[in-house]
């Protein structure tokens, strides 16, 4: 635990390293980076040591705050979240050296280096806090550091707008969490600590209220479908390494909170599981549908975060249903799927954001339509992006496949031999399958439009420096490792499931339920075939490869601009989901044989934010504005009337 505290201290040191240094000096950024990397490595070592010791480690120190105490706890559940958090923090910190150098951008570069470690430290503290007040404190540190990072780039109005939406959303969530912890304190005697796992009864109204508040508070952070309003804007506006940390780690803290909270209760009502399963299904399917309709690379990736949160929730819902209906296999597989997907999504989403950031860094644009043929100028970035894309689509032999496979196995249990769960749970299966297929389509679109096809002379692109390539390589290696050797992850997951179920409950080891060895063999076989295929199809000497326009529409045009665009590629699917997406398209109307020049544009508004919340908010502002103008009308007589009425009300009140 000392090691872990030192790690957090090093992160804070990295955040404060700039005090006393010249603004934008190289010394500062070096100190900050070294301190950050040392902190992350130390944290990884600490978590590994604690895990190898075999039992949860706690720290109890007094804290002179009402209801507060410096209580930390690292158990298996926290460890699953801590590993990707530390890894991605380190990767993003190193990446910033090439992506957002202080020498080129002294102001915002220093800003980024100050708050990035703070966000990481807040996340680590939330994941280990064992005291409600400390949890909320760390939660706010994380939320505010996140806001400050979203508004890093102040040359533009967009980050500020996205930042304020994020701030409003996260504070609404914090409000719900305050309510949740207040209710939780009435349920268990020792208010200084969070409840032990499986120590409370879930069959009370208070427990239901706690669950709903947790779903609101943590759901807003996690970005599940109706509560995802802040996510696309904030992820798109933030610098790419911040997007990676937010999408890969910070939104998972919401999942962590949801897991921790549901773990407090021993008998879980069935409707909790159904709610989580339903929300997960909606988030997964609609998340990917929205992603397909996006033209902005980072918004697209952000909607994929919503989709993956949906997949994680599907796993969690399966586990909760398993607990309600007494199906231990469902519990173990569902939790394992959800937890492994947390790790996996952290890895491949960070990889995608970093490689996407490299593309944006090289081209200066976030619009997919501006890219084309980038694989020639940035082959390594293209390879990393392809790896991340294959992982997020759930393709073997990468890690996304393993966790989705665990969720599938868990859901299949609902219909297996001796199942007591209503088979309705099976309906989540086609949803999950559809999500995977649509994700594949989406990334075929992104990769095809950006990296394949004819090069755009006006957007040449160039390979990023090694400080940006190295983090991507590490993350891709992580993806491949989990994909090829998932058995190495099972002990960690077992430990986390034990922590979630409470120490007393014995559960079947994951290795008995999920034949991870088969996956390894299959993955190796697949790699072998791929290797052989590549060897066979390798460019041979003396044989010329004909070069033509890839997306030529069957038309002999040599213009690189005349090709499939992001919106035309996705048009059919967007049409299928029109009921949810409400895409505005303005298309040419001239049907004559020789049409004049006409523009085409399509735009997909965010259903909840743009069509519901924004009009409602502006209506509210308008109404209250009218009301205020009516009340404060500048006529002295009215003001006197108000004081007379107030006096009268006081008299009546006193006369009671």
């Amino acid at each position, binding site marked *: 635990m000392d090691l872990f505290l030192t790690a957090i201290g090093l992160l804070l040191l990295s955040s404060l390293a700039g005090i006393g240094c010249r603004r934008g000096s190289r010394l500062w950024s070096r100190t900050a980076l070294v301190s950050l990397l040392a902190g992350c490595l130390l944290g990884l070592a600490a978590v590994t040591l604690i895990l190898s010791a075999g039992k949860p480690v706690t720290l109890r120190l007094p804290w002179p705050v009402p209801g507060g105490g410096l209580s930390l706890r690292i158990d298996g559940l926290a460890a699953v979240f801590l590993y990707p958090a530390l890894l991605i923090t380190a990767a993003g910190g190193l990446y910033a050296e090439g992506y957002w150098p202080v020498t080129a951008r002294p102001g915002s570069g220093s800003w980024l280096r100050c708050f990035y470690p703070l966000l990481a430290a807040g996340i680590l503290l939330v994941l280990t806090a064992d005291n409600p007040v400390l949890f909320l404190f760390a939660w706010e540190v994380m939320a505010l550091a996140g806001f400050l990072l979203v508004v890093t780039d102040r040359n533009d109005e967009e980050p500020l707008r996205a930042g304020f939406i994020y701030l409003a959303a996260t504070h609404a969530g914090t409000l719900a969490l305050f309510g949740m912890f207040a209710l939780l304190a009435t349920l268990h005697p020792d208010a200084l600590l969070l409840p032990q796992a499986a120590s409370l009864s879930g069959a009370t109204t208070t427990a239901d209220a706690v669950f709903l508040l947790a779903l609101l508070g943590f759901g807003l952070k996690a970005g599940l479908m109706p509560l995802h309003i802040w996510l696309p804007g904030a992820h798109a506006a933030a610098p790419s390494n911040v997007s990676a940390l937010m999408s890969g780690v910070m939104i998972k803290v919401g999942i962590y909170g949801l897991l921790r909270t549901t773990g407090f209760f021993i008998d879980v009502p069935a409707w909790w599981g159904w709610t989580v399963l339903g929300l997960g299904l909606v988030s997964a399917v609609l998340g990917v549908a929205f992603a397909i309709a996006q033209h902005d690379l980072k918004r697209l990736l952000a909607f994929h975060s919503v989709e993956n949160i949906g997949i994680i929730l599907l796993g969690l819902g399966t586990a909760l249903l398993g607990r309600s209906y007494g199906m231990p296999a469902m519990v173990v597989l569902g939790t394992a799927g959800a937890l492994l997907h947390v790790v996996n999504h952290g890895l491949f989403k960070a990889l995608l954001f970093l490689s996407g950031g490299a593309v944006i860094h090289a081209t200066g644009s976030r619009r997919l339509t501006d890219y084309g043929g980038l694989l020639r100028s940035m082959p390594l970035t293209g390879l990393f992006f392809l790896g991340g894309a294959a992982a997020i689509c759930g393709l073997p032999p990468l890690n996304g496949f393993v966790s989705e496979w665990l969720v599938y196995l868990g859901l299949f249990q609902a219909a297996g031999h001796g199942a007591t769960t209503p088979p309705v749970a099976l309906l989540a299966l086609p949803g999950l399958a559809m999500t995977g297929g649509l994700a594949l389509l989406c990334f075929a679109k992104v990769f095809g439009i950006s990296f394949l096809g004819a090069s755009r002379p006006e957007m040449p692109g160039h390979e990023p420096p090694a400080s940006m390539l190295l983090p991507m390589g590490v993350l891709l290696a992580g993806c491949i490792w989990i994909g090829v050797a998932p058995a190495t992850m099972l002990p960690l997951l077992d430990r986390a499931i034990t922590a979630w179920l409470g120490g007393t409950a014995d559960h079947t080891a994951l290795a008995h339920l999920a034949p991870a060895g088969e996956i390894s063999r299959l993955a190796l076989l697949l790699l072998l075939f791929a290797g052989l295929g590549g060897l066979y199809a390798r460019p041979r000497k003396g044989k010329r490869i004909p070069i033509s326009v890839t997306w030529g529409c069957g038309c002999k045009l040599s213009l690189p601009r005349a090709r499939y665009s992001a919106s035309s590629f996705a048009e059919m699917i967007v049409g299928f989901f029109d009921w949810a997406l409400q895409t505005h398209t303005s298309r040419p109307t001239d049907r004559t044989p020789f049409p004049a020049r006409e523009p085409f544009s399509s735009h997909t508004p965010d259903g909840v934010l743009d069509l519901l919340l924004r009009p409602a908010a502006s209506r509210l502002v308008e109404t209250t504005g009218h009301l205020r103008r009516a009340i404060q*009308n*500048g*006529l002295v007589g009215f003001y*006197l009337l108000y004081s*007379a009425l107030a006096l009268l009300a006081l008299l009546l009140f006193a006369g009671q």
Partner: protein
Amino acid sequence: MQNLPDFILIAVILLNFFLLGTSRLGACVQAVALQGALLSLLPPILSGPSVHALSLAGGAFCLKGIVIPALLLRAIRKLDINREIEPRLGYIPTLLLVALTTAGAFVFGDRLPLLAAHLNSLVIPASLSTLAAGFLTLITRRKAITQVLGYLIFENGIFVFGMLLAEAMPLMVEAGVLLDMLVAIFVMGIVMNHINREFSSSIDTDHLNLLRE
């Protein structure tokens, strides 16, 4: 002779009705003057002709009955404004409101925990209804001059309330209140002059709402 205070108080209440029911400004000022003069008779009647009471009465009579009305009448003549046109609330609704507040004052006065000596006197209802009338004048009338009249009526209501404490009220306090009034009237006079100059031939306070934001 025993009923004289009650007559005076009833006259004050009736004057309230008259004030809110008429549109002629001159008559309004005269009614307020009459109200103030009548009220200034109260202290010696209620608490006996002591030096304290007599000086109080004399000061109040001079200021409220003579000086301030004279100033106001002069202002009306100078500005050539005779009527309150377009009050915010019409005369009939205002009268109804005055009737309501007066009735409320009587009901409320009965429920106050008073000393036994004041239990059945008209002082409390008269005071409350005069306060309400002053408030209503301030709220429903637009002209600066009627605003001044509203404050005067308000002050009359406070003066009636002070009757309960006539023995206890130090001379200086009452003198201070009267002085405040006088200063307020002067300020209002200056304001009226300025409104008149700025918005030619009108002393409508509705022009003074630019600072509302």
